[in-house]
């Protein structure tokens, strides 16, 4: 068997040299001082590969146009097995990759490994850092939810402030004044067509340069015999990669990546926030106002990048032991303090989400399948605090029976009688009569009849605005003319998918006077309180 294998190997090596190349790569000499501190580069490379992989898989089910992008991502999250995991890997992988690339730079910086003759290696590295950040910037838009849209509005506006280049940059990004299909296409093109080959090429150059100059030795390494890269250092790299991968995987499984409402360019109340690694820049901007703004947005970051690139030419001293590089340490410490301070300030000043319409589509969305009557029932169920006596699945009290089981055998008429007078139907019942109108009791019964152990999550997951919206919807008898999720009457159009046909302002105007916008409409005008209107709108606009 083994001999057979060797023969194949020899044959292949003779034709391609692959075996020899791998050997040469693995049995490279490295300085005796090499060790755990040099694992970050390999981890960054690994994370790049994971990003490519998860990105390609996402692209298999993703439609890169605004609107469709959002729907297809929602499809990935809610309909496909493993879809949430893939998006989690890609999302958290980006954050992790930036972290690791920065750690890698800090290590190289502290050890002075950029010194002659390794200047070019360092400079290519800085460009790779910028490319990594560019992925973050362009990828941010691709979900096309409110977060993506408004975050990108801010980013393109910053780009357009650049002295001289500004107008050209913003034209290049397609974002002249507004963000639409053109910007989207360019961001997508950059993210998946241009950046990956550029990154792969520069990584190859970077690795080639590392190999050409050898791993940077520490002072005193000349006196000790060299080591081989394989297997000891490969083992260390592998362990580090495994640690990073474990962190990534756990985050992808456990930490939910939000998908907000479909991007709404008219929603001026939205407070955009960039991704965490750009927060410090965002905060820096606030320190400069008026004509000085460009200093914070372009000049300072530009100078910082320039300084970073020129580091090897600024510090040209002899190689010294890490422990004696106090200046480098203080510099890194200062930068870290500055970064943390700015980021913390940005986090603290983030206003609490006006969480009214923040639907987390990455959470179970069973509640969206409920009819408006059933969803209104959820509202009554919460108001009346039925869980103080009843279990629903595994949660709630045990005084009354578990409602996911018992109600399956009941009908609405029985239940409504029972609600009105529990003791009348079940002598001696400890359940108090429920004080609701017949209409409301109908909703409650409808919901309970639908309730089963599988969809019990709807009870806790349905966001408050949707439940409130459904209550308004029921209270005004919209179901006498409209269908939601197939329940109701077909006098008017079914309201599912309203978000794709109508804008919010159109629907608001339509409520005020339906026949003005739809001549001959038999829908009566409606007037709502501000709160009711907000909830109803938000509810109608999330209907799938």
């Amino acid at each position, binding site marked *: 068997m083994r001999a057979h294998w060797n023969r194949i190997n020899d044959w292949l090596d003779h034709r391609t040299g692959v075996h020899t190349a791998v050997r040469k790569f693995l049995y490279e000499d490295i300085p005796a001082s090499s060790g*755990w501190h040099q694992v970050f580069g390999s981890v960054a490379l690994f994370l790049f590969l994971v990003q490519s*992989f998860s990105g390609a*898989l996402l692209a298999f089910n993703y439609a890169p146009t605004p609107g*469709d992008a959002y729907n297809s991502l929602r*499809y990935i999250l*809610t*309909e496909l097995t493993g879809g949430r995991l893939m998006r989690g890997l890609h999302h958290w992988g980006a954050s992790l990759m930036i972290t690791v690339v920065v750690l890698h730079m800090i290590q190289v910086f502290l050890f002075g490994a950029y010194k002659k003759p390794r200047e070019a290696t360092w400079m290519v590295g800085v460009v790779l850092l910028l490319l990594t950040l560019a992925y973050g910037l362009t990828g941010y838009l691709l979900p096309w939810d409110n977060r993506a849209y408004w975050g990108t509005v801010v980013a393109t506006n910053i780009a357009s402030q650049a002295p001289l280049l500004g107008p050209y940059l913003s034209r290049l990004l397609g974002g002249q004044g507004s963000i639409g299909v053109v910007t989207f296409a360019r961001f997508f093109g950059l993210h998946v067509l241009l950046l990956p080959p550029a990154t792969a090429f520069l990584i190859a150059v970077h690795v080639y340069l590392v190999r050409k100059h050898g791993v940077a030795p520490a002072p005193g390494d000349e006196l*000790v015999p060299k080591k081989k890269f394989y*297997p000891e250092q490969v*083992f260390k790299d592998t362990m580090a990669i495994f640690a990073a991968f474990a962190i990534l995987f756990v985050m992808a499984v456990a930490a939910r990546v939000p998908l907000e409402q479909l991007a709404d360019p008219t929603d001026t109340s939205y407070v955009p926030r960039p991704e965490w690694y750009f927060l410090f820049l965002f905060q820096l901007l606030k320190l400069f106002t008026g004509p000085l703004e460009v200093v914070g947005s372009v000049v300072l970051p530009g100078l910082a990048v320039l300084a970073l690139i020129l580091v090897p030419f600024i510090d040209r001293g002899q190689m010294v032991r890490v422990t004696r590089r106090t200046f480098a340490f203080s510099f890194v410490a200062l930068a870290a303090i500055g970064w943390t301070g700015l980021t913390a300030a940005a986090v603290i000043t983030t206003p609490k989400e006006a969480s009214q319409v923040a639907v987390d589509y990455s959470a179970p969305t069973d509640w969206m399948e409920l009819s408006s009557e059933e969803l209104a029932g959820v509202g009554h169920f919460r108001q009346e605090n039925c869980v103080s006596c009843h279990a629903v699945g595994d949660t709630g009290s045990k005084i009354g029976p578990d409602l996911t089981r018992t109600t399956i055998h009941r009908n609405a008429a029985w239940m409504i009688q029972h609600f009105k007078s529990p003791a009348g139907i079940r002598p001696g019942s400890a359940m108090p009569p429920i004080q609701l109108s017949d209409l409301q009791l109908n909703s409650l019964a409808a919901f309970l009849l639908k309730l089963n152990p599988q969809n019990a999550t709807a009870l806790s997951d349905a966001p408050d605005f949707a439940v409130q919206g459904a209550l308004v919807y029921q209270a005004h008898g919209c179901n006498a003319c409209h269908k939601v999720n197939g329940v109701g009457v077909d006098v008017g159009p079914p309201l599912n998918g309203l978000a794709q046909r109508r804008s919010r302002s159109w629907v608001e105007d339509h409520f005020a006077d339906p026949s003005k916008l739809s001549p001959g409409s038999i829908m009566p005008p409606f007037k709502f309180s501000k709160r009711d209107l907000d909830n109803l709108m938000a509810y109608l606009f999330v209907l799938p």
Partner: protein
Amino acid sequence: MDSVETPPEPGAMPPPTRRTFYVAAIYGIWGLITAALGLPALIYLLVPPRMRRQNEWVEVGKMAQIPIGTPVEMTFRRMRVDGWKVVSEQNSAWVVKSPNNQITAFGPQCTHLGCAYHWDEAKNEFVCPCHNSLFSIEGKVLGGPAPRPLDQYETKVQGATLLLGRLQTPPEQSA
């Protein structure tokens, strides 16, 4: 400058050297990572999507419009879930009403290669123009290359209205 390593695992038959431990760990971990990425990827690609909204019943027409004993082609619109989209599609069915008011509705495509067939009044047969497959009024294959009888829609009559459900392949060889 040897740092402290995890000691080789005890208990294995020949006391493994540090080198074999390294090599084993490298292979093991890379195997694990490959599996942890590859399996979910296969599941993600191969498991069919959870279809949330099933195709519903659609109204296609009034019972009274359908003649007894002669197939008629009826068209209707229905929503179809296509990935992340719901599209409204034009569909058609060949509907046959038997003398005792039993309804059969055939899918509009020949079971051979999917051509649209039609009813030949003179021959009293469904004829497919592509390769001359022939079907009886019950949908059975009478000739030509068609491998199985015509597909049928689920049917339901509500009041005076005919509704069609999903298109189904009838059980093999119902002859």
